[in-house]
């Protein structure tokens, strides 16, 4: 019996790695069709960002959402833009969307189209898309002086003066909150060039790996709140009560993390079981 166990372990140690690939693939795909709904605890940085958005008045001064992420980091950041847009549209808060990255143009457009369609938000009244302007820091500084200097027209060529939402919106003075979602240093740029000189309240959403680097800004109050990676998006979804791709992603995450740990544990059990056997065999000869 011992030898059959050992043989099993030996075979397990030499398992074709493609079986592992298959297990990972299944673990990723299943939550898309059958969400597990594992509970997610909300952490303070996410709560603070949610509160800042929640304080905005319906139909009042708008949120400026800068969707600065690119296709490479969209898996982590798109769930955030979706959750935030759902939140503001549900509350009737108006929103101005823009991007600092050329590759963010399409990302931002598809995000707002989807959210607006779902919530029945009206373009020009509930949201405006300003598009992309090159020159990160110059753009951020320029918005503090006058938005129309930087974006004379929206992304579709309509002068801002003809858009109802933009009436009375000149610069950061008329924007109570700004959120940047980015997989690069855009969040820092917003802190340096919008918060420092103009006192603009800035919130951020970044990839999980970047989040630890930004915590100091959170402690110093330079960021009002922060979403870190898919987990941050999942927490935000919990707060708005609508689990979406973030929560689903966290299901996959939990399962795959468990699979990897299980593989490590089983690998070690098998290793030690067979090692004893190898030692015995070694003594025999």
């Amino acid at each position, binding site marked *: 019996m011992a030898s059959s166990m050992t043989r099993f372990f030996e075979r397990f140690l030499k398992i074709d790695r493609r079986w592992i690939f298959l297990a990972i693939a299944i673990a990723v795909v299943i939550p898309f069709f059958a969400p597990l709904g594992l509970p997610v605890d909300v952490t303070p940085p996410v709560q603070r960002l949610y509160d800042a958005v929640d304080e905005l008045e319906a139909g009042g001064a708008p949120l400026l959402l800068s969707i600065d992420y690119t296709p490479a980091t969209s898996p982590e950041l798109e769930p955030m833009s979706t959750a935030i847009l759902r939140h503001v549209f549900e509350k009737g808060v108006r929103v101005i969307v823009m991007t600092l990255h050329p590759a963010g143009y399409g990302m931002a457009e598809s995000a707002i189209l989807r959210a607006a369609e779902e919530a029945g938000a009206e373009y020009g009244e509930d949201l405006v898309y300003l598009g992309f302007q090159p*020159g990160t820091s*110059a753009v951020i*500084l*320029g918005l503090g*002086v*006058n938005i129309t*200097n930087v974006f004379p027209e929206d992304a579709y060529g309509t002068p801002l003066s003809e858009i109802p939402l933009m009436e009375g919106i000149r610069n950061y*003075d008329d924007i109570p909150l700004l959120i940047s979602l980015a997989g690069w240093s855009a969040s820092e740029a917003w802190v340096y060039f919008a918060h420092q*000189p103009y*006192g603009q309240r800035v919130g951020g959403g970044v990839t999980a790996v970047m989040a630890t680097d930004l915590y100091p800004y959170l402690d110093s109050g330079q960021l009002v709140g922060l979403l870190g990676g898919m987990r941050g998006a999942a927490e935000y979804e919990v707060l708005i009560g609508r689990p979406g791709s973030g929560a689903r992603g966290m299901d996959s995450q939990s399962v795959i993390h468990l699979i990897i740990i299980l593989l490590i544990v089983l690998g070690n059990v098998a290793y030690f079981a067979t090692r004893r056997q190898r030692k015995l065999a070694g003594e025999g000869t």
Partner: protein
Amino acid sequence: MRARTPAGFVVGVLSISALFLCSAALAQEEIEAAPADSLPPLSPPTSVMISDTPNDRGFSINVTWALSSDDEAGRVTSYRIYRTSDPDTGFAFAGRVSPGDTEYRDGDAPEGELVYYRVSATDDVGAESPSETSAPTQAVPQWFNKERINVLIAVFIFVAAIVYFVVSARRGKDLFIRRLAGLDEVDNAVGRATEMGKPILYISGLSTVSDVATIAAINILGEVAKKTAEYNTRLIVPCADPIVMAVEQEVVKEAYAKVGRPDSYNEDDVFYLTRSQFAYVAGVNGIMVRQRPATILYMGMFFAESLVLAETGASVGAIQIAGTDAVTQLPFFITACDYTLIGEELYAASAYLSREPVLLGGLKGQDTLKMVIAITIILTTIVATLVAVNAIGADFMTPLLITQ
């Protein structure tokens, strides 16, 4: 020759916006003047002081002021800073800061001209209360950045240590170097590839020469190429950067020439693939599964692709030796490769492989500095702790923390 484009752009944007804001502010002031029951105008900021920004390239003035007495009550919405070369002809908008702030750095001051500043407290309807005009000063560029003197001293000590040990090595002083397992294996790996009749794959990172790790990788390639040339083993070097490719072609070609086999060098084996990170990975993966190299060396700067490369390499059964200073990628190489040079070991590798006394002397210099650093850290930690618990006065720290 000042970089004109961005500066010109900023000046342009700022002056246009200044004009706009001034006219807007003026227009609003007229309106606001009418109602009698509105709040009294803000009290202006006082004691506006200006000075040339120290240690800068020029064109910059630091402005400081005392808060408006209405600031605490929350009536001030911002402070606006204005500049002029001639106070009689009016002021131009220079910048804006939040209430509570008492300083501003103006980066667009003209050089060699006296300038004057004024700071206005602005309320929520845009009415401004300007301060008195400041005394004039000039924006002056500096020739030496005093804030960096500590770096200069440290670099000087470092250079002295390296040069001293290089020179004494040249005089024939015997130098010891500890074992680096990964590098001892390079010889075996070349031999193994020769026996199996399979090539060696050398990946010199995905960065440019601007990362020093890439330079280290080029140095190591020089040593590796000498060995492969001796054994007449095929060496494949796909490059992710065209300059690195140009240099590495030179390196490998010379190595073959030196062992008297210039004809064995094949330019098609040291080639450019693509700069694009994962397109490069796609290409290298293809080379791995089709050429089945016996040995793969990863030296230099790596990013997220490290594990994709190393796992594919492991799957074709190659002996893998990695070396990188990319802290985030080291765990992946350690997991998937047979040997990994960690951080500084990468930089020691070319000295180790070549055993050239002058290069080994450099290592000795590095070690000396390391010793100095370790002792400094121990001392400053002790002193900092004693100061923090008031066991000794804080003045004691000042000379040690000159690096602030």
